[in-house]
């Protein structure tokens, strides 16, 4: 499938996957993340179930301290 991940096109060798699977696939290991599918917030506890499909816009934002 082809998705838009963080505003960039990404081709993934699967028909669908959950947000948790995407994080593992992309090696996103930050402790604190905000995840969205098509602009809708996917909470931490929903990531194992929330499915990503072809054409979806996915956002994975890493949160780091400093301000």
């Amino acid at each position: 499938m082809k998705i838009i991940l963080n505003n960039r096109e990404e081709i993934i060798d699967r028909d669908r996957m959950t947000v948790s699977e995407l994080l593992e696939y992309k090696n996103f290991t930050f402790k604190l993340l905000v995840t969205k599918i098509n602009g809708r917030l996917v909470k931490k506890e929903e990531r194992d179930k929330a499915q990503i499909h072809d054409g979806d816009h996915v956002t994975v934002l890493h949160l780091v301290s400093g301000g």
Partner: protein
Amino acid sequence: MDTACIRRQLASKKVGIAGCGGLGSNCAVALIRCGLGSLVIADFDTVDRSNLNRQYYFQEQIGMKKVDALKSTIAAIEPDCRVEVHDVKLRPDDIVRIFGHCDVIVEAFDHAREKEMIITTVMEKLADKMLITGIGLAGYGRNNELRAERQGNLFICGDQGSEVSADNPALAPRVGIVANMQANQVLEILLNTESDENNPE
């Protein structure tokens, strides 16, 4: 748009700033210098000597509440700017109550967990509100890594990677750049000239 026109438009606007540390204090001062009419600022902390390496405070303000110190600094620059202060450690309910009536909200927290809290709160409870967040500003140099990105109603300023730690401290230049990027983004939104590029949502 000339300066008078910009000031006239900004005079009727209200911006909320969550946190009055390096990002919040510098962002606030930049906005009021441009003629912003109203600010809502919130922080629970007091000014410490160690803050003066990057935050918009002065020696004689050490020990003061940051919200009170910042309000007095703003009054010394732009006495007509209305400043509403909240001496509070912000929780989700406070964010809705305190910033719900602002035109734009600036996230200026220190800790990643607080950044997560305000982003998710605004997305869930104030979904039509634009939030300008500062993420990734530790250290020095690497000018070209500092950038701005839009994800729906969330605007992210910073390099999105460098985390503050003992070996990678927050320093005035990069903190100031990101704070001013946030202020610059607020102006673009309030003056209705934001471009729609980079906005797939």
